[in-house]
């Protein structure tokens, strides 16, 4: 298995660093972007194996927009090649993300594969990353 490429989109360099260390120690190749726009561009160019995406960047919901953009079903979407990339979303503590026990699917439904809450626990991160990458394979 070649080094899998992981794109981290987060504007907090310390959080990026805290994730980069354990990921690189486990032979993942890490590329980073510090805003949604740069993130989308890198996703399209590099087509990583996994995207780790923060919700709050310049705006409180920038991450949501990035996720919708990447998963867009539009036939002329710029990010057609990114539709299948798994997304792991980073949420802050106590951030509303809609609970799974609500039977109503609604706008709050997010096209992402899993959530990880800040502060990042390296063990949890590595476990989730491994699962998502394997699933993709």
């Amino acid at each position, binding site marked *: 298995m070649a080094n899998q490429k992981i794109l981290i989109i987060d504007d*907090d360099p310390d959080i990026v660093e*805290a994730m980069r260390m354990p990921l690189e120690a486990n032979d993942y190749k890490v590329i980073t972007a510090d805003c949604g726009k740069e993130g989308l561009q890198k996703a399209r160019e590099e087509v990583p194996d996994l995207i780790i995406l923060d919700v709050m960047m310049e705006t409180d919901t920038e991450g949501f927009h990035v996720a919708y953009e990447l998963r867009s079903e539009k036939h002329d979407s710029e990010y057609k090649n990114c539709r299948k990339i798994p997304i792991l979303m980073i949420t802050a503590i*106590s951030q509303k993300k809609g609970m799974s*026990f*609500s039977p*109503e699917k609604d706008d709050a439904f997010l096209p992402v594969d899993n959530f990880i809450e800040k502060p990042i626990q390296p063990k949890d991160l590595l476990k989730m990353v491994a699962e998502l990458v394997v699933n993709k394979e």
Partner: protein
Amino acid sequence: MPYNTHTQERSSVEEELIERALWFISLRWITVAGIGITSLTACFVLNIGIPLIPILIISACILLLNFVCITYHHYIKCISYRQYMKSHQRFVNLQIFTDWIALVFLVHYTGGIESPVIFYFIFHVIIAAILLSRKACYLQTSFAVLLIISLSILEYANIIPHVQIKELFPNPIYDNSLYLLATLFFCITSLYVSAYLATSIANRIRKREKEIIVLKDNITDAYQALEKKDREKSEFTYKVTHELRAPLSAIQSLLKSVEEGYAGEVSEKAKELIIRSEKRTGFLLTLVKDLLDLVTGKIGKPREGDSKSVDINEAVKCTLNLMQEKVKEKNIKLTVNTTEKPAYLKIIPDDLDIIMTNLIGNAIKYTREGGTINISNIIVDNEIRIDVSDTGIGIHKDDINEIFDQFYRSKNAKAIESDGTGLGLTIVKNLIKRYDGHIDVQSKLGKGTTVTVSFPV
């Protein structure tokens, strides 16, 4: 904001005026009925020779007038509220005015100055005092006095014929000038004294009413100002805690990576120190999380659309799933009684999550190894009730009223669990209040605690 409340209060006074106008109109129905019954009784039972036809015609006129009044009242009220208020005084004045005329005719046909009906003039003086200003009341009284004087003089001078009720006054005394003067004197003075007394009392009551309204305005204003301040304070707390969240998360994440050796080898001592630091930042993060939840509950009613139908049974299951490890760790016996059918509640799912996590979390935290926790959901009397009872350490009866206070932690709680912000139950109570729900705690020290939460459905 104050402007709004003033107009609102003024309209409540206006409502009162409308009520009184209606009251006056309904009194008139009773009066007509009274005149009819009295005159018929006088005529046919007591065999008093009163001119029945003119009296009944007068009654019919009053009846007709009252129909016009009530129609006008509803009509103008429908057209415009302002218009009604503007014409209200004129409307009442006109009604009293026509009543006087009807009354003076009634007096004339029942014996003029000799008629006992003459006492009824006092009623309208009192009504005028209640419904009109002091000046208008005196004007109306003067008009009545003028009518009485005119009637008696016209009859005295034989310009209009005097109706003699022989059964009451076998000998006419209307033409006795001394009797006439005396009766007029006492009649007029009683009317003016009544006007004085009634307006004095009415004015006093009106003054009080105004004072009460001003007082109510002041209290409402002060309350709103306080509410605004409280909201601002909550928003400030929200912003501050929000700002604290990102750096704390970053510190904690970095510490964790260092601790686990991803930044190079760490000595045993360094590792121990890092773990201690992590524990402290961990506490700060919990505090930040609790403060954010607390402030959310204080921000007010949830917006329409944010709430969803949530099955309480599923929510309990979800929360327990996340806490399974701790339950196993402490070897706690757990029983869950759910309703047969899904029990749907309209709530923001995250709010319910916070409530359930706090309640079940507390039960687990304060129950000793091998204890029992019982969770049951029931639907009774239009409410969903969730009971969480444990055989834990319990709450001292002196503490039970304080447990909902911010940052309060009882001694025995601190003894069993040193960490804790003391905000959990405050958060829960605030959130439950958001949905007009209710929380009740029953506890016996050393025996256990039962928390009952109910939501209207």
